[in-house]
Every structure is written in structure tokens, then in C-alpha cells.
């Protein structure tokens, strides 16, 4: 459905996207993952025929971007990052405007309008000014606008950013539903989101694709480090250093007082050693768990320059 070949974007001497190629078959929900500034938004904007690529080709539903950019736009429903809408328009008024510029024929407008209002749960606010809506509602208006012309492809740039947890759950459910009859590209840096919604993940860093596969395949194939969480009571001050000395432990992070996370090389179980150390030093061991490598680990490993686990706060917020 979407065919991207050697797509590059250069601003003067800065290469933002470097020869990116991928294919998205019909009906797939693809997660686009990467740190801020990795080139996700630029790539999406090029696919949507907003920014002209420096080189490379894009085909959406059989239409070549270089030959027919408006044809490509007509086949994509796009939800930009930080959806900006016209605050002075009413929801229904705005959606009618979108329908008109998307080329929806006049006789189809009432039906499409009813469909998107219902689908995005906007029927109650159809007469409200967009400027008075909450961020969650505005996001849904953006999504409704992206759906109004029945596009086969949906491109969503960080659709859940800035929403409260309840709104995030609703939008995710909606995206999963939409994924049943649309081909979707979704960019995000929230990892659980990818695992919940996407069948396939592309990890992009510094303008390049660094990984491509299902979330499961990525987890098992790429992760080098796993994590062991240790909680100690009555531990002395040297605990952190002693834990770090255990063979196989790459790094120790202090999560809270007496709570540590150990980064461990593949396959090595250090729990035995930790337990032994606790007995020896008379510490009270209240937690000792080894976690399965998460997509987060994979992501961080692939997108961090040095091969170390990054700072604690980054791990926490993903």
C-alpha cells in the first residue's frame, strides 16, 4: 500500500532523512518509533506530499508522489503532531470545509459527516466552537478530518501526545478499530503504545532505519541487556558498589533508597549472586525480579550512541 524507496531529505548540509526504504502492506498498522529529531515527522510529511523529498520515491496506493502529489494527498488521511485547527470554526463547519477541500462530492458529504462524527464520538459537540474544546476532543476532530474523505491510508503523527490517560486509552482504541479497515502509519515515542497497537515496528534514528520487525521479533532479536530489580532493607551505603562488582552486572542504577536496577548481559542470571551477597552482608532482601527485555530496552539500545543503558529518568519516561 505504501512503498518508500531510498527517501532522503536534506536541508542545506544537514541530512535529516537518509535513504529510508520500507513497504507497508494493505491493512497493516506500522509503528514508527524514534527519539525526538530522528526524522519521523519529516518522513511522514514527505509521504503526505507536504515536503518535497530531496531524493527517493514514494508510492501510495499505486500513485507515485513525484507524478501526482495531489493524488497522493487525496489517498492519505493525515493527523499532524500537535493538531492545529481553526479555533473560530464549529466542529461540523470545519469538517464540511475539510470535506470540500478533500474533494468529497456534495451528495456524499452528509453521509461521511455522520460517519466520522459517530466514529470519533463527536456528535455531542458538533455545534461547538473548536476553540472551546478540550485537547482530547480536538485530537478527535483532527482524526475525523483525516477520515472524512475515506482515505485508504492513515498517517498519524504522535496521536496521543498531551492527552490525559483516559483520553489516551480512547484514542488508542479508536486507532485499533480504524486499523481494521485502513493501512496505518503511526509515529510515537511511547513504547507500550506500539506494543498495543502495531503489528510491525520501524525504529528510526538519526534519519536511518535501525530496526524493522514485529514487536516480539525485535524484543528477542535485538536486546542485549535485561534488567534485575533489587530491593534491600537495612542495606549499608556500599550496597551499590558491591552490587556493581557482581560478575555479569554492567551497570547499577539507584531507583530509590535501597532499590536498584541492575543491567545484566544476556542469559546471565545474577539473582543467585545478589541473594548470596545479601545473606553475607545481613541485608533484608524484599524484592528480586528479573524482567524480560522490553521494547524499551531494544529502543534505547538502538538509539543510544554508546552501548550503555541510559540515565534513569529516560528509562522511566521512555
Amino acid at each position, binding site marked *: 500500500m505504501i512503498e518508500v524507496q531510498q527517501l532522503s531529505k536534506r536541508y542545506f548540509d544537514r541530512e535529516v532523512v537518509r535513504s529510508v526504504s520500507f513497504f507497508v502492506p494493505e491493512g497493516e498498522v506500522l509503528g514508527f518509533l524514534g527519539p525526538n529529531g530522528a526524522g519521523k515527522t519529516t518522513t511522514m*510529511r514527505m509521504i*503526505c*506530499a*507536504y*515536503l518535497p523529498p530531496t531524493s527517493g520515491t514514494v508510492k501510495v496506493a499505486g500513485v507515485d508522489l513525484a507524478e501526482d502529489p*495531489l*493524488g497522493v*494527498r*487525496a489517498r*492519505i488521511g*493525515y493527523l*499532524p503532531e*500537535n*493538531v*492545529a*485547527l*481553526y479555533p*473560530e*470554526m464549529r466542529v461540523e*463547519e470545519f469538517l464540511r*470545509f*475539510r470535506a*470540500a*477541500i*478533500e*474533494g468529497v462530492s*456534495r451528495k456524499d458529504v452528509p453521509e461521511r459527516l455522520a460517519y466520522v462524527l459517530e466514529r470519533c464520538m463527536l456528535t455531542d459537540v458538533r455545534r461547538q466552537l473548536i476553540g472551546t474544546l478540550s485537547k482530547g476532543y480536538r485530537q478527535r476532530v*483532527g482524526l475525523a*478530518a483525516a477520515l472524512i474523505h475515506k482515505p485508504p491510508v492513515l498517517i498519524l503523527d504522535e496521536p496521543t501526545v498531551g492527552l490525559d490517560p483516559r483520553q489516551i486509552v480512547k484514542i488508542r482504541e479508536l486507532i485499533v478499530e480504524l486499523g481494521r479497515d485502513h493501512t496505518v502509519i503511526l509515529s510515537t515515542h511511547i513504547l507500550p503504545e506500539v506494543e498495543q497497537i502495531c503489528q510491525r515496528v520501524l525504529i528510526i534514528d538519526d534519519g536511518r532505519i535501525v530496526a524493522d520487525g514485529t514487536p516480539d521479533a525485535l524484543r528477542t532479536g535485538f536486546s542485549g541487556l535485561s534488567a534485575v530489580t533489587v530491593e534491600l532493607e537495612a542495606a549499608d551505603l556500599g550496597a551499590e558498589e558491591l552490587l556493581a562488582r557482581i560478575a555479569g552486572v554492567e551497570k547499577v542504577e539507584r531507583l530509590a533508597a535501597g532499590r536498584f536496577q541492575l543491567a545484566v548481559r544476556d542469559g546471565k542470571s545474577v539473582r543467585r549472586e545478589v541473594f548470596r551477597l545479601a545473606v553475607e552482608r545481613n541485608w533484608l532482601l524484599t524484592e528480586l525480579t528479573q524482567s524480560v527485555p522490553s521494547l524499551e530496552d531494544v529502543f534505547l539500545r538502538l538509539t543510544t550512541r554508546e552501548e550503555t543503558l541510559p540515565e534513569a529518568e529516560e528509562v522511566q519516561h521512555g
Partner: protein
Amino acid sequence: MGKLWAIVKRELIAYFSSPLAYVVLTAFLFVNGFVFWLIVAYLNDPRTRAMAPLRLLFGGTMYFWLLLLFVVPVITMRLLAEERRTGTLELLLTAPVTEGQVVLGKFLAAWLFYLFLWLPTLAYVAILASYATIDPGPVAAGYLGIALLGLLFASVGVFTSSLAKNQIVAAIFAFAALVVVFSVGLVENLVTNPALKNALSYMNLWDHMDDFAKGLVDTRRLVYPVSVAGLFLFLSMKALETVKGR
């Protein structure tokens, strides 16, 4: 065509749902009303030479130009600058519409709003007509001149709005550019070289309005504003293609 009209309509909705439209409308009517009163009072003085009052109202005084030089940038400043600042431009230009359609749609909306500003001045014509007989020819030609001037001024405003991200900056640039566009033709009175004088007379907007207000419809007075508007709209389109996404 449907898409272009959709853009024009949306822009008109934006005009009339913002307080700015009403402020501009009020100020415009206030100043024009004052000027009209001034002209009538002036012509009522027995010592002044008899003259058609509408000829003075349509470009015959400095007030006309001062007002337009201020009002048009205020009308056009928002058009593209605001879309870029808020990011709505991205949504607009990922719909199957061209930069040209966006520029033209916004320009037409601004022009229609400008014409709307002039609509209440028909009351002056009605007032004058109730006291004296009025020759409809020069009046119609005067309005035509105003409409053409609107094309030229609005296109300059659209262009500066396509370059700036900030509305106020767009307005100030438009004002500066319009002062230049307006003054260039007046240099005609200062030069003696006949070729240059001829060229400058072509751009003399004061004479442009004066001719129309006298009822003189000359094709070159039609061609100049239309072609300059075309040029600025083309430049706006190119500017939009370059600046989007930044």
C-alpha cells in the same frame, strides 16, 4: 472550483468571527463618514469651486489613501502568517489543494471583505442623490477603480503575509510596501525625462483613482493593477512553497 470556493468561504467565516473585522469596519466607516462630512462642508462654502463630491471622496483627498494604506494590511496580515504560526497550514496543504488555490482563495476572501467595507458608502451616494442629480457613470467607474485598487493592495498584503510568521510583522511590511507602490507613481510629478514620466504615469495610483472618479475607464488603468496583483500572487505562491514546513 469547489475547493477554491471552500477556502474563500472559510476565510470569510474567519473574518466575521473575529473582532478585528468589526473594529476595521467601524473605524473605516467612522473615518469615511468624517471625510464625507468634510467634503460636503467644504463644497458648501460659496468660495469653493463647484466639484462632484464623490470625485473627492474617491481618491481625491489624502484621507482616502491614508485609510487604505492602513486598512488593507490589517485585512490581509492574518491570511497566511497565522496559518503558518499555528500550524494549520500543514493540514491545509496535505489536502489535495495546490499552493496556488490556497493563495488565490485567501486573496479573494480579503478582496471580498475589502469590497464589503465599501458597501456602506453607497449610502453617501443615496444621500447625495436625494439632494442633487448624480451622474451614475462616474460613480460606477469610481467603484470600479476602488475594486481594482483593492486587487493591487490586497495582493501585496497576501505576499507579505506569506513571508512573515507574525501577523504584525506582515502588516508592517505590507504597509511599507504599499507606501512604496503608492508613492512610485507620484514621482511622475518630479521627473522631466519624458520616457520615465510616461512609465511612472502608468503607475500613478492617484491619477488612476482620479480618472475613474471622473468616469474615465482607460484599459491601461485596468491592466496595471490586475497585472501587479497577478505578479504578487505568483510570488506569494512561490514563497508558500518555499517556507512551508519551517
